[in-house]
C-alpha cells in the first residue's frame, strides 16, 4: 500500500524554496485540499510550474495570495489579476511559456529527453534569449526540459498502490507532471482497493506515485 498522508502532513515534506509542478487548468484537476494546506502552511519562496494560477484566492491562486510564490513558469495568468500585479511589481518572477511548449518541456523532463524542437514562438518575444536549431534548412526553437522537486497532482480515482485514472478535462497536465517530479503526491477524489481500476484504464501507474492524500474526514 502506498504511504498516505493528511494534506497538512503532506505539505511538511515540502521545504521553503522548493520547485513544484502543480496539475490543473484553471483549477480544474488541481489538488484542491493539498493547495489549501500549502497556502495555510506559510511556505515561502516556492517556484511553481503550472499552466495558470486559476482565479484570485482559488487553488494555485491561494498560493499567490499567501505570498508563497517567488517564481512562476506558466502559460496564462490573465484570469488572476493578483498574479499580474505580482509580476508587474517584481514580487513574482514570471516566465510565460506557450502552453504546448510548457507541456512538452515538462514531458521532456519526465521522459529523459534533452529538449524538444518546436515552431511555436519562433520569431516572437517568447523566443528571446532562447536557442534556435537549424535542421535540414528548417529553423526550430529549442524548448528545454523542466523538472521539479515535487509534482502535486490530482486524479479521479487512485487504488491503494497509487495507480491513477483521470476524468474528462481534469486530466490536463497531471499525467505528464507525474513523471517529472522527483516526489509525486496525488490527491484523488476516490481511493479504491487494488484491482478495481482495470489495467487499460490506468493512465499513471502507481510506481511513479510516492504519496496519496487521505480522503477528507
Amino acid at each position: 500500500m502506498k504511504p498516505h498522508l493528511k494534506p497538512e502532513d503532506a505539505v511538511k515534506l515540502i521545504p521553503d524554496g522548493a520547485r513544484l509542478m502543480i496539475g490543473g487548468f484553471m483549477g480544474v484537476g488541481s489538488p484542491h485540499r493539498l493547495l489549501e494546506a500549502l497556502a495555510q502552511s506559510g511556505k515561502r519562496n516556492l517556484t511553481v510550474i503550472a499552466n495558470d494560477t486559476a482565479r484570485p484566492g482559488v487553488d494555485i491562486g491561494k498560493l499567490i495570495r499567501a505570498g508563497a510564490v517567488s517564481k512562476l513558469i506558466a502559460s496564462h495568468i490573465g484570469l488572476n489579476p493578483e498574479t499580474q500585479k505580482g509580476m508587474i511589481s517584481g514580487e513574482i518572477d514570471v516566465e510565460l511559456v506557450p502552453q504546448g511548449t510548457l507541456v512538452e518541456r515538462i514531458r521532456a523532463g519526465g521522459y529523459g529527453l534533452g529538449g524538444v524542437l518546436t515552431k511555436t514562438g519562433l520569431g516572437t518575444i517568447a523566443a528571446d534569449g532562447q536557442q534556435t536549431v537549424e535542421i535540414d534548412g528548417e529553423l526550430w526553437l529549442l524548448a528545454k526540459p523542466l523538472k521539479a522537486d515535487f509534482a502535486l497532482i490530482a486524479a479521479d480515482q487512485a487504488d491503494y498502490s497509487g495507480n491513477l485514472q483521470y476524468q474528462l478535462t481534469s486530466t490536463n497536465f497531471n499525467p505528464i507532471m507525474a513523471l517529472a517530479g522527483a516526489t509525486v503526491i496525488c490527491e484523488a477524489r476516490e481511493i479504491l482497493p487494488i484491482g478495481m481500476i482495470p489495467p487499460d484504464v490506468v493512465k499513471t501507474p502507481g510506481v511513479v506515485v510516492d504519496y496519496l492524500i487521505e480522503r477528507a474526514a
Partner: protein
Amino acid sequence: MKPEEIIQRRVARELKPNSLVNLGIGLPTGVAKFIDEHDNILFESENGIVGLAAKPPEGMDDPDLTDAGGGTVSAIPGAATIDSAYSFGLIRGGHLDATVLGALEVDEEGLLANWVVPGKMVPGMGGAMDLVTGARRVIVAMNHTARGAPKIVPKCTLPLTSIRRISLIVTDLAVIEPTDEGLVLRERAPGVTVDQIVAATSAKLVIDGDVPEMDLGVAA
C-alpha cells in the same frame, strides 16, 4: 443584427463539414450557435476535449468538464478527452482544421498580435501561439475597430503571436484575406460601403473590382 452576430454567422459559413475546429474564448465561442448540425463539425478545446458542446443547464454541469476559460461545458456523444500533451499534438501536428480567435492587431503581412500589451495587460499567450502556428487555417474574428481606432494596421506595434501569416480576417464590416499581394478586401458586411471599410482601416487594402456583400445565410 448585432455586429458580433454578423461576425459569428460569417465565420460559421467558413467552417467545412467534418472538420475539427478550436474556438477561442469570447466572441469566437459564439460561432458554434450558427453551425448547421448536419455538417458534423467537431469542436475541441486545448484543455483536453474533442467534441465540446454548449454549457448544460445550471445544476447539470460537471466541474470536471470545462473549456479553456475554465467554464463548464457539455460534450457530444462520441466526445474524447485527452491530456495536455496530446491536445497540443493535435494542434501543433497539423490535425486541427481551423482555429478562430480574436486579435488586438493584424497587419498588412497578415501577422497577428493578440496576447500582450507590454506594461498594461500581461495575460500570457496560453495556447494562442501554438494554435496560430499549428492550425491549418487561422481565422481572426474581431470588431473592425477598437473604440474607433483601426485594428487592421500597416505593421503590428504589439508583440506578434506568430510569424506565420493568418488565413482570413472576419469583422463586423468586412472579410479580408491576407495574400502575397497584401490584404485583399473580399466582402462587405450588409449595408456597409467600401469607403467605410477603407476609412476604418489604417492598413492598405487591395480592392479589385466590385466587392460583394457577405452571405450570412439569413437576412441581416
